[in-house]
């Protein structure tokens, strides 16, 4: 594995999935629940730039170039900066975070991500008092993502968080899973993970993080505002118009299980939404 990974890293631009990450620590935020097998985590993906069927991203993202990479951090900040892959990986000590991951479609996984708190980016860029929201943007290239035109959503994919959500210790930038570099179909080389929100908030392959005063537009909300809100917190009490959110199917399990409010992370995040009407601000 190490040898293969070493060779792959010598060829510029080749996908580096399979390369081991080392020196990461365990996190108290990790769940001890049974982890979804690597095979399922890496072949059952929603990454519409690479096809709308779950099995397509694993195939069509195979040659996606993730090195060199440039992540631009700017907006209402004191220190705008552009990071290459090497600097992203060294931004903060890596941690393993085993999180529940709940998709708005009614299925869920448990994934051992590797990454660091998003707050590391906040600390680096030093947002001004004007910064109220964080806007994220995915990489987009018609050439590298030939199936983009079938996605049916406006691209590049964009997402957003409120500042206090972004600063919450549960929010991470992930650079790996299962002890290795993120496979392309999982959003290589760097993606957001906000485990108390539906999966589509956890934007993949990020090239830009912008701090701003106004609430940023988000892709699924633009595409269908009645069905997907800005907050999109996991909430069994608020149904999606087309299906109930009360239950979910954990991949690999036969029976459905009850969906937990904030995906079970209420203790860490519920206070962010105190006094808000979550039925209206879905």
């Amino acid at each position, binding site marked *: 594995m190490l040898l293969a990974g070493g060779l792959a890293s010598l060829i510029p631009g080749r996908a580096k999935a399979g390369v081991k990450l080392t020196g990461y620590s365990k996190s108290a935020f990790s769940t001890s629940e049974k982890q*979804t097998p690597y095979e399922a985590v890496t072949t059952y993906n929603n990454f*519409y730039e690479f096809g709308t069927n779950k099995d397509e991203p694993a195939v069509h993202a195979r040659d996606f170039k993730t090195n060199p990479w440039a992540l631009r951090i700017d907006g209402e900040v004191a220190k705008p900066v552009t990071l290459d892959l090497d600097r992203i990986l060294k931004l903060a000590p890596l941690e393993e975070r085993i999180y529940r991951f709940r998709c708005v479609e009614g299925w869920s996984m448990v994934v051992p991500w590797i990454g660091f708190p998003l707050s590391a980016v906040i600390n680096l860029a030093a947002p001004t008092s004007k910064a109220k929201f964080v806007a994220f943007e995915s990489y987009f290239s018609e050439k590298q993502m030939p199936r983009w035109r079938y996605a049916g959503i406006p691209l590049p994919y964009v997402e957003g968080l409120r500042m206090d959500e972004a600063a919450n210790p549960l929010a991470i930038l992930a650079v790996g899973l299962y002890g290795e570099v993120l496979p392309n179909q999982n959003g290589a080389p760097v993606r957001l993970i906000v485990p108390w929100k539906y999966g589509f908030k956890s934007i993949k392959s990020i090239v830009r993080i912008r701090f701003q005063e106004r609430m940023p537009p988000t892709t699924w909300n633009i595409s269908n505002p009645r069905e997907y809100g800005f907050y999109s917190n996991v909430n069994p009490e608020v149904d999606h118009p087309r299906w109930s959110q009360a239950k979910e*199917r954990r991949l690999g399990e036969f029976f459905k299980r009850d969906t937990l409010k904030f995906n079970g992370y209420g203790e860490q995040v519920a206070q962010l939404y105190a006094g808000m009407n979550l039925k209206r601000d879905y």
Partner: protein
Amino acid sequence: MRRFLSGRTSKILVFALCLTPLSMLLWRAYNGNLTANPIEYVTRDTGTWTLRFLLLTLAVTPLRRMFKAPELIRFRRMLGLYAFFYGFLHLTTYVWFDKFFDAADIVKDIAKRPFITAGFTGFLLMLPLAVTSTSGWIRRLGGKRWQRLHRLVYFSTLAGVIHYYWLVKSDIRLPVFYGALLALAMLLRLPIWLSRVRSV
């Protein structure tokens, strides 16, 4: 060809062919090859085949005319019944493995979720057609009335297309494709209907 189409062998062959989607599904299940979300896969697969068989059933009349092969009528009932069969598997998968026979939840789903309302309507419309598919029922109802009843298949297919269209999140290619096939099947009927109107 004529003799083949009106013979026994062709009927057995078509019957067996119609079972391949199910056989492939069972084969994949046996090999543990139903993706990371098997129940979703089975639901999708049986649903798609229901729609395909409905469209195949609707293709019989235009194909008979186009190829001047009236013998094709021999396969129409079978194709229709297979549509019902796959529709039944589709509904069963939902009722059993998605809802675990929770009747209250199912009723709520049908009432509240337009795409399920459409799908359920499509299935209900197939039900009387499957029941009255026998020669006995054709006799009992009389050819004219039987035929009028069986026009429900157009609406059942339309409900299926809408069901699919409302289900997908953003990539509408396949539902639109099946909708276009339905439109084509209807369009090809126009001359038949027009000539009938003129002859009255």
